[in-house]
């Protein structure tokens, strides 16, 4: 039981490049979330999903897209990376929304030059 895993752990991009971050969970959770963590800002919700095939915008969705084609996977895409997207990205999942524990992955550190 691996919990929540994220790939890759670290990535360096040049401005304008694209990439996809992968999140996988093996707990059969319906709800999945992508956050970004920046110094002094805490965790801010980018996008989330309430089930396979669904996605919704969070607090800071601009510049990101997501897909949830399989229940266990939640992908976060950057189509044209910008230096402002330099951050640590965390994926989380939960059994039900808002009132249940969210389980976090180890994070992906992204540097955009």
């Amino acid at each position, binding site marked *: 039981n691996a919990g*929540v895993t994220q790939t890759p752990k670290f990535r360096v991009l040049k401005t304008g490049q694209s990439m996809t971050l992968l999140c996988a969970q093996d707990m059969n959770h319906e*709800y999945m*979330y992508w*956050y970004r963590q920046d110094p*002094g*800002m*805490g*965790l*801010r*919700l980018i996008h*989330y999903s*309430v089930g396979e095939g669904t996605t*919704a915008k*969070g607090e800071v969705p601009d510049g990101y897209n997501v897909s949830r084609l399989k229940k266990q996977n939640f992908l976060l895409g950057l189509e044209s990376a910008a230096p402002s997207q330099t951050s640590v990205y*965390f994926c*989380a999942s939960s059994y039900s*929304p*808002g*009132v249940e*524990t*969210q*389980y*976090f*992955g*180890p*994070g992906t550190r992204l540097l955009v030059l």
Partner: protein
Amino acid sequence: AQSVTQPDIHITVSEGASLELRCNYSYGATPYLFWYVQSPGQGLQLLLKYFSGDTLVQGIKGFEAEFKRSQSSFNLRKPSVHWSDAAEYFCAVGYFGNEKLTFGTGTRLTIIP
């Protein structure tokens, strides 16, 4: 909109001393409250949570928190800190029927010998 305030950005405590981290939430409905801990380079781990019932909640690693509705607070406490408690601590609030958790900006805890 729901919000969480952690007024202390950084706290330094001597090993063996007691600890209290502050958290205030802002919303009218009955909140579901969480404390998470993030060790350096790691994801977030749940320390404890409050849904209803006894307002004093026990968590892992010897932590406890008390829900005070009159003060809209959910402060985290530990009677005697250990060097391994050095980490960043996040308070979060959720509500039944709301799909999202809202996180505070975090409090970084430093332990000195």
